[in-house]
């Protein structure tokens, strides 16, 4: 039982001053920060995984043969022969129009129809997705194929240039996870301090209860219930604020569809974890309070 059941008459043994101390407010702030950090961590981890999945087996072959007709033929041959290899999942020629549109974003031509842009000697690109397995061996065989079909072409594994970005994002996700852990520890410390302060404040009552035969468990349940309820108020408040912030960010994020940002989302599992965190926090607070109280009560005869 997260919040222990205590008879109504026994509850009166502690004065009824709920939400009067700083504990619920401190817990609310910590819970809000915990949820935001957890959401950031989950979003970043999913983004890193998405990038990792996307780049892990993708290779772009850049054919720079000067003669455009030969270049186009080499690209077509490479696509066809690569697609026939057992270690290749798919292969496709990147259309010139795609290249022009991409370059147009950087060179100032919105639609890529600038005559200067069109006059540039653009390479032919072939995107190849490898199947899972021995990546180094697959790349070696692909290198050999490329050397045969299009001598001088460059094989560019996407992991080479997007890998550091994915690692950075994954590192940030771990930092967020570390922050979640630290804030959970801080919340536990707040609960321990609250429990000890409560024992100090009510020492006379506790001593009296002991002397008339109350067990440690009876006394601990009183305080455990009070601390769990106060903590639950704080957690509920922090969760509500965090939920509002996350929904606002989610609403703004829904318009972001391009680039790496579009890969960041919480997903059903992430939302479930975020919803579980407050319940886990209440359980953790109640357990921490109980252990703290029982340990402290044992020091009293």
């Amino acid at each position: 039982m997260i919040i222990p059941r205590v008879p109504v008459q026994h509850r009166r043994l502690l004065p009824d001053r709920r939400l009067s101390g700083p504990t619920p407010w401190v817990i609310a702030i910590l819970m809000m920060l915990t949820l935001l950090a957890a959401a950031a961590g989950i979003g970043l981890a999913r983004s890193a995984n998405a990038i990792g999945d996307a780049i892990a087996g993708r290779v772009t072959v850049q054919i720079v043969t000067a003669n455009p007709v030969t270049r186009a033929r080499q690209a077509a041959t490479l696509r066809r022969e690569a697609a026939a290899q057992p270690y290749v999942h798919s292969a496709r020629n990147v259309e010139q129009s795609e290249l022009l549109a991409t370059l147009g974003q950087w060179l100032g031509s919105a639609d890529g129809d600038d005559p200067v842009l069109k006059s540039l000697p653009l390479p032919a690109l072939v995107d190849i997705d490898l199947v899972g397995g021995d990546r180094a061996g697959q790349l070696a065989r692909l290198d050999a194929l490329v050397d045969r079909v299009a001598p001088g072409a460059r094989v560019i594994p996407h992991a080479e240039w997007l890998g550091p970005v994915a690692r950075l994002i994954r590192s940030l996700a771990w930092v967020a996870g570390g922050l979640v852990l630290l804030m959970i520890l801080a919340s536990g410390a707040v609960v321990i301090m609250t429990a000890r302060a409560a024992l100090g404040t009510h020492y006379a009552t506790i001593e009296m209860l002991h002397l008339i035969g109350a067990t440690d468990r009876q006394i601990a349940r009183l305080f455990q219930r009070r601390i769990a309820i106060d903590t639950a108020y704080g957690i509920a408040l922090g969760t509500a604020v965090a939920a509002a912030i996350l929904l606002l960010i989610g609403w703004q994020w829904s318009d972001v569809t391009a680039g790496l940002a579009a890969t960041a989302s919480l997903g059903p599992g992430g939302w479930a974890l975020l919803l579980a965190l407050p319940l886990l926090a209440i359980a953790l607070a109640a357990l921490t309070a109980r252990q703290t109280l029982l340990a402290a009560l044992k020091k009293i005869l």
Partner: protein
Amino acid sequence: MRTGGTRPRAAGVMTDARPARAGGAMVEFDNVGLRYGPDGEVLRDISFNLQPGSFYFLTGASGAGKTSLLRMLYLAQRPSRGIVRLFGEDLGAMPRHRLPGFRRRIGVVFQDFRLIPHLSARDNIALPLRIAGVGEEDLAGPVGEMLSWIGLDERAGARPATLSGGEQQRVAIARAVIARPQLLVADEPTGNVDPDMAMRLLGLFEALNRLGTTVIVATHDIHLISRIDNAQMMRLEKGRLSDPTGALRYPPNRA
């Protein structure tokens, strides 16, 4: 702990020469010493037996160690040395989780009342029964009777801060006796009440004693002591128990 044998007895109030069998005593102290911190002992070489159903007064000058002795009796303090047996069990060897069961057999009237300030007089009196798990439906009768007896039924809902010192004392006494303890320990129980109320309270103690409760009352009031027939007196002087007749350590068997 001594469990039998004979011992020469000095002439005194206790004339039965047969020492009590220690196994029959409710409380046994054997060469008990108590110290707080590094200072010298506040109680030294305390040895006595309290017999079931007896009535004892504990006297002594302020600072003689009366309250320290009582604290060991009501299990608020373990001795620094020696053996304390309560209800036949060695307190020193008793695991902590068994203490509550023993404490429920002891009623305590504290010198400073120790009422719980945010509870009403009724709830303070009901506390031992609630802690013992008595249901609410079974509480009303005994608590009401106790409130009537101490003359506070009109003020049952009052909190201690609104009660006079004497009224608080009466509530504290009612709380100590409501669970019909086997041993009643009272530290200056009449210190804050008028003589009439003091006699009524003493009458309650005596009535409980007749019903089998062993009573030990620490007091300075010499008149109080003379009111109880067959009461025995224990005197503490500078941390030592004065027992010139040996009757405290080797009490006579009760007829």
